[in-house]
């Protein structure tokens, strides 16, 4: 094979690899990217059970309940327009409490309860989940502002 042909072959291979990577990524992203939902989104467009999504909102005051095993909690998540029941088994981040913002990873079960597998921590005022930046909860009117 001539040097020129070999170079052309290599260039074509590289191009094929690039296109291949793009196609692979695109097809996988369609299935695996977890969309961010607020409770109102989830009511407007129900999420199919078992699909990995993120749910964000406020933990409703008075809704937090500890199960007898000591490690499972149940709580309601609201954005002021809709409320979704959620449950989580594990150690919650320290800044997780009633009336504070929460972003949870997980999926809905058949009954519409959100089964959280991970609750994203807000380490402190400076480091908070990006999704919560646009969310503001008005304590007095119980309304949630969602900025795109």
């Amino acid at each position, binding site marked *: 094979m001539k040097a020129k042909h070999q170079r052309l072959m290599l260039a074509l291979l590289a191009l094929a690899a690039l296109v291949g990577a793009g196609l692979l990524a695109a097809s996988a992203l369609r299935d*695996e990217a977890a969309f961010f939902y607020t409770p109102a989104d989830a009511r407007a467009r129900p999420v199919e059970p078992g699909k990995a999504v*993120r749910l964000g909102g406020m933990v409703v005051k008075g809704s937090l309940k500890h199960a007898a095993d000591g490690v499972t909690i149940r709580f309601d998540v609201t954005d002021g327009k809709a409320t979704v029941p959620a449950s989580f088994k594990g*150690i919650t981040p320290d800044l997780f409490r009633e009336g504070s913002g929460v972003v949870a990873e997980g999926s809905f079960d058949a009954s519409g309860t959100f089964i959280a597998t991970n609750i994203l921590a807000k380490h402190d005022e400076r480091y908070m989940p990006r999704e919560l*930046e646009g969310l503001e909860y008005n304590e007095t009117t119980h309304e949630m502002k969602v900025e795109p």
Partner: protein
Amino acid sequence: MIAEAGLIALWLAAALAFLQLALSALGLWGGKDELLGAVRPVAVTQGVLTAISFCALVALFLRSDMSVLLVASNSHSAKPWLYKFAGAWGNHEGSMLLWVTVMGLAGAAVALFERALRRDTHMATLAGQAAISLGFYAFLLFSSNPFARLSPAPANGQGLNPLLQDPGLAFHPPTLYLGYVGLSVAFSFAIGALLTRRVDAAFARAMRPWVLAAWVLLTLGITAGSYWAYYELGWGGWWFWDPVENASLMPWLAATALLHSVTVLATRDSLRAWTVMLAVIAFSMSMVGTFLVRSGILTSVHAFAVDPERGSFILALLAIYIGGALALFGWRVGAVREGATFRTVSRESALVMNNLLLCVILGIVLIGTLYPLMTEAFGHKVSVGAPYFDRVAGPLALALMLLMAVGPLLRWRQDQARVVAKRVAVPAVLLVLSLVVLLMVGAGTIGVLPLLGLAIAIPVGVASLAPLWKRNLLRTPLFTWGMVIAHLGCAVSLAGMACDSAFTVEKLVAARPGDTIRTAGWTLHFERIAPIAGDNWTALQADIRASRGGGAVMIKPQSRFFTLPPTTTSEAALLTRWNGQLYVVLGQEADAGRWQLRIWWKPFVTLIWLGGIMIALGGVLALIGRERRGWRHKWQKGEA
């Protein structure tokens, strides 16, 4: 005074970078050859000045000089000295100063120690290094001045994010930065060679040690970062596909590809344009990583400041350098002659496959990392995590491992498929055997990816030793040892990852002091929980007696409260045994008297980082081996 001295040193260094660029450009293309003699001293002085500036910042942090804005907002006089010291780069400005310091020192090292390169390419390389440095100097001086004063000076500072208050901070960022910025040398080499049209084996031999060194440091930095995240975050995971982790993985993938292609170029004079392109991509990935991390576009513990102006500044630098390098490549690639050819069955081909696979994985990681940013521009909030990366990058990485087992057994230029088949027969049989055994034992209980990983790790480990087969081990060149150990390290690391995901036992309980918990062969006796105090924190500490068969060991997971800034972190307790780690996290009080405990037994998880260290060690051996051979050649020539 120290702050002003540091700032002056930084300005002088920036001026020298400009001088270095001007001198080398005039000398090379302006016909003023006599100017070139000044380039090297200027580069060295510039390196020294950046070091002085960096030392000034460290001194300010050590002295807790609160009249400096950066110290006041990121430090506190009550902090242990180690975190005052490491805190100098635990913030945006300080870490960017570390970046330009490493860049200045790397330029000085290229000026001082590079002897193999042609003089004109050497000068063009130093011009390239100066051009890149200039942009980052501008970034520091105009938008992130680390020495800005604060008036009036506050009585005390705001403290350092407690998650960063760990000895890891002293080691992880500098190593990673040395690796990131070390790749700038490869980038400058590529620019230099394109400018002087000298892309050949001699160029590759000159570039290789710099690539190897940067790659070793990147490997160490990533390994250390992974272990740090593993024990500090208390989530039991060792890799989270966090954008910031990806930002360090992408340059590593590109550097790994570059490392292999530069060897082809050095040994066989093939893959000329390809290698130059990879050198450009590798440092571009470092810059993309910095952009992602430092622009505040991603919110994480690594994003110190959310400041759109800085983000756009870095984005502009990125566009100028990457765009410029690609344009130069497009313009000059025609002048780069084709190198030597090779057959389809040859080591060159295997290395081309290695490069392609690495680049595909790199592309997949890059797309996955940027996708949330792209969709957000269209109003959809999306997160891309482990499910995506595992599903797409996982199988490709496994294919790469198989290729890694076969590649070193091929001859350069051409080989015969039948002979190769004979050489890989033993690992191939092992692969089939381990697959069958694992399918019988673990089908249904172990996930597909961990099962394949386990099945592949053993034969690949055996095959990576094959290049030593029937050789006199003492006379085997050091760089062959390096390759063998690095490849074996990959297999070891893979085994650790697969074991961790296949066999980890997790238990989550709410326990009272006095309770006994049994899991995975361990007996944990929860003795008491009590408050304790540290240097700048207080904590609740659980005393747990852990035993497995014989002797018991006390382990003490903590939940720490820092007051400056007010934050809680959990300090996991780790108990390392030869066959795995016991990992215990103390949670919150579940109800009166009961405490949440999360317990993992992770078999062979330590292999992950052991493998990482082996990979880096392999790189060091290869570096020493190549350099020593070079010295010996020179010495023999001198004798004759």
